[in-house]
C-alpha cells in the first residue's frame, strides 16, 4: 500500500508508467507467495521430525473427564486407562465369542462353592511385574518403580467401595462379601472421627479392617469371595476398575503444592504410560519399558505376546502372520491422540493419511464402501475395512406409566404399542440414516451375547400395515381417530437430540405412524429438560440406546427390571416397565451360568417382551473401521477395549503415502492474485486519467 501511495502521489500521469509499477508489484508479491509456498505450505498437522517413528495417530471427539481407574466410565477415558493399567483378566484378542484369558493373573480361575454358600475365586499373580517409572515411588522412600503386589489389588477393591471415590460400579461389586459393610463402616468412622478423616486412604482402609471378601496372601496370591452367585464378576475383572493401583500414587497425587491430581495422573503397570496429557486437546502414550511383556519376553504370557490362534477366518484375513505370531508386544512406540471435535475434518485428515484409522462418517460411506467391501479407489490406496457387530441396542421406548401408551389401559394400550411397533421399518431406517449399517434388532440381545438367536424373528418387528390397522381398531382408535376428540390420536415423542440430523431421524418415525392416523409430535428439548421429563415420567415415547458393559445377557435384560425403573430409583429402566413375571424370570436368569436352563428362561422373557412391547427394538450397531494399509494386525473389537498393543505400523510406507497424497496445488493462488489485479488496475488508471 505504501508503494502504491507513493506511485499515486508522485505519479507523473502517464498510464503506462503506472501499469509498469503495477507489474513490478505483482511480480514481487508473486515471488513472496512462492517463497511461502515452498517453505511454509503443507497440510501436515505434525512436526516433520516425527515422521519416521512408529507413532500411532488417533483422534478423539470428547475429552476424557477423569482418569481414576475406579471412577472413570467413559469411552474416552477407557482408551487411556485400558492401555496404562493392566487388569487381572483380559479378553483374547482374536477369539469370538469373547474369551477371558489371564492378565496379571496367570489363569482364569474357576468358582469354588464354600461350605457357607459363598463362592471363592483364587488368582495366582505373575511375579516380578513392575509399575511404570514414576516420581511418586521415590516420594515414599522407594526407587523409580516397584513391584506389583497382591496388596495393590486389595487396595484397588477397597477404593471401589470407598464412598469418597464414588465409583459408578459400586453396585456390581456389592456382591463381594463384606463390600457394603466396609463402605458403611468407612463412612461412619469418617463422620465420627475428624482425626481419622485426615489419615491417608490406605491407612483409613486398614483401620476399618478391609473387605472380608477381598484377601491377599503373600505378594502373589489374591482371592475374592462372593456372598451371592454373580458369575459376571469375572467380566468386570477384565476392566480397568479393579486394576492394581499403587497406594503411593493415590497418596502423592493429591493436587496440592503443584502436584497433579491422581485422576489426571494415572500410574499403572500396563504396556503404555501416559507421557503427556493436555486433557482438552491431546495426549501421548509412550511404550512402558517396565511392562512384564517387554521385560520378560521369555514368559510368553497370553496377553503379552501376539496370539498363536484365533477365530475361524482370522488366518485368511491375515491376522495370524508368521512374523508376528508369538512375538512380544507392544509393537508401536508411541500413541498420539489428538482432539477433533467435528467428525468431518477428522475424517478428512484420515483420508490424507494423518490418522491411521478411523470410523466411517456416514456422509462418506457411499464413496468408500460398495456393498460389503471397500470401493476400488480406496482399496487402491491401500486402505482396509474392518467390520464388527457392537454389543449394544438402540430402541424406541414407551413410558409404561403413561395413561395412553402405558400399561394402565391393559390390552387396549398394548394393542396400540403393537400397532406402532409394526409400522417402524428398521431396514429402511438404517438404509437412510446409517448407510445400512446395523443389524435389525428382534429382542434386546445383540449378536455375540449368550442368548442371541439369529433365527428368531419378532412377529411385531416386520412392517404390516393391515395388521397394524386392525390392532388400532382393537386399541379403540379406528383409523387413528381418538373418539374423544374426533381427531387423529396425538402422542408426543421426546428427545434431547436437538441436532438437525436428529430432526430428520425422528421425522422418519413420525412419518411411519402417520400412516396409522397417529399424529406424533417430536419435542426436542435440551438435555436438562429431557432429563427432568424422564425423571418425572412426563413423556410418552423416546429413543434410547444401551452399550454393554460386559458381554452377558444380564447386562441387557436388567434394563427392563422393575427395580431399575427410572421414575422409582433413577435406574436405567427408562420405560418404567414393571412386570412381576418378568422380574421373577430375570432374577432366576441373572445368577446362572450359561446353560440350557438359562437359555430357556431367556426365551420366556423374550416372548413376554414380544407381546408387551415396552420397547420397539431398532437395531444393533455395526462398526466399520477403516485403516490404512500401513497399520497391521487390526481386528475390530465389538466391546470398547483398547487393543492397540497388538497393532504394528510401517512408518516409512506412511511417510511415502502422505507425501504422495498431499502435494499442494498452487496455481489457483496465482489465478486469484491476477484476477484481483485485473479488477483493480484499470480502475486506478481511469481514476487518474479522469483527474488529469
Amino acid at each position: 500500500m505504501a508503494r502504491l501511495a507513493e506511485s499515486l502521489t508522485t505519479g507523473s500521469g502517464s498510464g503506462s508508467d503506472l501499469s509498469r509499477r503495477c507489474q513490478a508489484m505483482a511480480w514481487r508479491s508473486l515471488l513472496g507467495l512462492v517463497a511461502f509456498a515452498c517453505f511454509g505450505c503443507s497440510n501436515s498437522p505434525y512436526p516433520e521430525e516425527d515422521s519416521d517413528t512408529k507413532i500411532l495417530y488417533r483422534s478423539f471427539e470428547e475429552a476424557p473427564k477423569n482418569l481414576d481407574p475406579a471412577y472413570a466410565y467413559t469411552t474416552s477415558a477407557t482408551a487411556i486407562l485400558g492401555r496404562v493399567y493392566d487388569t487381572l483378566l483380559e479378553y483374547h484378542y482374536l477369539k469370538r465369542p469373547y474369551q477371558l484369558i489371564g492378565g496379571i493373573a496367570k489363569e482364569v480361575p474357576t468358582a469354588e462353592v464354600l461350605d457357607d454358600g459363598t463362592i471363592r475365586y483364587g488368582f495366582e499373580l505373575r511375579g516380578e511385574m513392575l509399575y511404570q517409572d514414576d516420581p511418586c515411588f521415590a516420594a515414599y522412600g522407594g526407587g523409580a518403580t516397584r513391584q506389583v503386589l497382591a496388596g495393590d489389588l486389595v487396595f484397588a477393591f477397597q477404593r471401589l467401595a470407598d464412598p469418597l471415590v464414588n465409583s459408578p460400579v459400586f453396585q456390581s461389586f456389592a456382591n463381594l462379601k463384606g463390600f457394603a459393610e466396609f463402605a458403611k463402616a468407612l463412612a461412619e468412622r469418617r463422620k465420627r472421627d475428624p482425626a481419622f478423616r485426615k489419615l491417608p486412604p490406605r491407612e483409613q482402609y486398614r483401620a476399618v479392617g478391609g473387605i472380608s471378601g477381598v484377601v491377599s496372601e503373600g505378594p502373589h496370591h489374591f482371592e475374592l469371595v462372593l456372598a451371592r452367585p454373580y458369575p459376571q464378576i469375572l467380566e468386570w475383572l477384565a476392566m480397568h476398575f479393579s486394576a492394581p493401583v499403587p497406594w503411593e500414587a493415590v497418596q502423592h497425587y493429591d493436587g496440592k503444592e503443584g502436584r497433579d491430581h491422581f485422576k489426571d495422573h494415572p500410574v499403572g503397570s500396563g504396556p503404555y504410560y501416559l507421557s503427556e496429557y493436555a486433557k482438552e486437546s491431546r495426549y501421548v502414550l509412550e511404550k512402558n519399558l517396565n511392562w512384564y511383556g517387554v521385560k520378560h519376553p521369555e514368559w510368553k504370557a497370553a496377553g503379552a505376546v501376539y496370539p498363536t490362534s484365533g477365530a475361524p477366518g482370522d488366518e485368511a484375513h491375515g491376522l495370524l502372520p508368521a512374523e508376528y505370531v508369538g512375538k512380544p508386544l507392544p509393537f508401536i512406540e508411541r500413541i498420539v491422540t489428538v482432539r477433533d471435535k467435528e467428525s468431518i475434518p477428522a475424517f478428512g485428515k484420515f483420508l490424507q493419511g494423518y490418522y491411521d484409522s478411523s470410523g466411517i462418517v456416514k456422509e462418506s460411506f457411499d464413496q468408500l464402501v460398495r456393498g460389503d467391501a471397500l470401493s476400488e479407489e480406496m482399496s487402491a490406496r491401500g486402505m482396509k475395512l474392518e467390520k464388527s457387530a457392537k454389543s449394544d441396542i438402540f430402541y424406541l421406548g414407551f413410558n409404561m406409566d403413561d395413561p395412553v401408551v402405558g400399561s394402565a389401559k391393559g390390552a387396549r394400550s398394548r394393542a396400540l404399542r403393537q400397532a406402532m411397533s409394526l409400522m417402524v421399518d428398521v431396514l429402511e431406517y438404517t438404509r437412510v440414516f446409517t448407510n445400512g449399517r446395523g443389524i435389525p434388532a428382534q429382542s434386546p440381545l445383540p449378536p455375540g451375547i449368550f442368548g442371541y438367536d439369529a433365527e428368531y424373528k419378532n412377529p411385531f418387528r416386520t412392517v404390516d400395515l393391515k395388521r397394524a390397522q386392525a390392532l388400532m381398531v382393537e386399541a379403540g382408535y379406528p383409523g387413528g381417530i381418538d373418539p374423544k376428540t374426533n381427531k387423529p390420536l396425538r402422542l408426543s415423542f421426546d428427545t434431547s437430540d436437538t441436532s438437525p440430523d436428529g430432526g430428520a431421524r425422528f421425522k422418519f418415525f413420525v412419518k411411519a405412524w402417520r400412516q396409522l392416523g397417529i399424529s406424533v409430535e417430536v419435542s426436542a428439548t435440551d438435555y436438562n429438560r429431557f432429563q427432568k421429563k424422564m425423571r418425572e415420567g412426563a413423556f410418552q415415547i423416546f429413543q434410547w440406546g444401551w452399550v454393554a458393559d460386559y458381554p452377558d445377557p444380564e447386562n441387557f435384560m436388567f434394563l427392563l427390571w422393575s427395580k431399575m425403573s427410572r421414575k422409582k430409583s433413577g435406574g436405567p429402566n427408562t420405560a418404567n416397565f414393571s412386570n412381576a413375571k418378568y422380574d421373577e424370570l430375570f432374577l432366576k436368569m441373572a445368577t446362572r451360568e450359561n446353560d440350557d436352563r438359562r437359555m430357556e428362561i431367556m426365551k420366556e422373557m423374550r416372548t413376554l417382551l414380544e407381546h408387551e412391547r415396552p420397547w420397539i427394538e431398532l437395531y444393533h450397531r455395526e462398526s466399520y473401521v477403516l485403516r490404512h494399509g500401513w497399520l497391521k494386525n487390526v481386528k475390530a473389537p465389538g466391546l470398547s477395549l483398547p487393543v492397540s498393543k497388538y497393532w504394528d505400523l510401517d512408518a516409512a510406507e506412511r511417510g511415502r503415502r502422505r507425501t504422495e497424497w498431499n502435494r499442494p496445488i498452487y496455481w489457483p493462488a496465482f489465478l486469484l492474485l491476477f484476477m484481483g489485479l485485473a479488477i483493480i488496475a484499470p480502475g486506478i488508471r481511469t481514476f487518474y486519467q479522469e483527474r488529469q
Partner: protein
Amino acid sequence: MSEFLLEVQDLVTSFPGSGSERARVVDGVSFNIRPGEVMALVGESGCGKSVSALSLLRLVPKPGAIESGSVLLDGKDILSLSVPDMRKVRGHEMSMIFQEPMTSLNPVVRVGDQVVEAIRLHEDVSVKAARSRTLELFKQVRIPDPEVRLDAYPHHLSGGLKQRIMIAMALATRPKLIIADEPTTALDVTIQAQILSLLRQLQQELDTAVLLITHDLGVVNELADRISVMYAGRIVEQGDRREVLANPGHPYTRGLLRSMPGLGRPGEPLAEISGMVPAPADWPRGCRFCTRCSEVLDICESEVPARRRLSLTHHVACHAVEATE
C-alpha cells in the same frame, strides 16, 4: 500577457439532475480580476456563487463536474493542469477562505500545525522555520497571544479567532489571489466588522487580488472594487462598484439593493424580492429571473437576454435595458 490575473470564460459546472440531464449550476459564467483588485460575486444563496468559486480551485464535490469553459490564472490554464500541478496552484497561487470557520479547521490538529502544513506543502522549509513564519502570520492577522494560540485546538478558539487563523492559512504562502467565500456570514456583527477591516488592510498591504463571494451588499460596498451579480447560475450584471451600486441595470440588482437596509432611502420601507431562487431543475428557459421580475416582458420567458453594455465598465443582461453603444 494580459492585464488580468484571473480570466474566467464561459465556465459551466453541472450536477446530476433528476433525469439523465445534468443541471448546470454554473452556466456560462465569465469574469476577470486584475492583480490587487477586489472583485465581489454577489447573489442570493443557491445561485451558484460558491460552486463557481470551488470550480476555480477544481474542488467541486463529486458528483459535480466542470463541463466546459476556461480558467486562466496568470495565463495558465487551470482546467487542463495535471492533478499534481493543480495541487501546486492550490494554496500557493490561489487560496481560499471558507464560510464556516467552525468546521473548516481540522478539530484534532493544533491550529499552528495546520498553518505549518499549509506552508510546508509548498515550500521546502524546516518545521521550525515554518513555525516562526506561522507566528509572524498570527501576529499579522492580529491574533492576541499568538505563541499560546499556536498550540491551541480549534475548539479552544472563538469563531472570530478561527476565521483569523483561516486567513493566516490563506496568506501563508503569499498567494496572488484569495477567494473569500462569505468570510463573515457565520460571525457576530461586531466580529464581522473586525474581520472585514482586517481583510481590507491585508489586501492593501500585500496587494493581493481577492474574489469576495457574498450576499451582503454592505460588505461589497466596503471592500469591493468591482461587482459581478449572479443569479441562477448566470452573471446578470457586472461593473465597477460605484456604477453598479449607484446605477443598477438589472431588476435583480435593484431588488437586492432595495432590500438592503441603509442603502435605500431613509424612511422608505424595505422592499423584498418575492419568492425564492428556484431549484436548478426549475430554471426558466429564457431570462432566469422572469418568474420573480416586476418588470417582466413577453420575450423574457422565451429568450436568453444578451449582454448589453451600459458603460465601458458596466454590463447587464436584461431585455428591459437599452444598450448604450
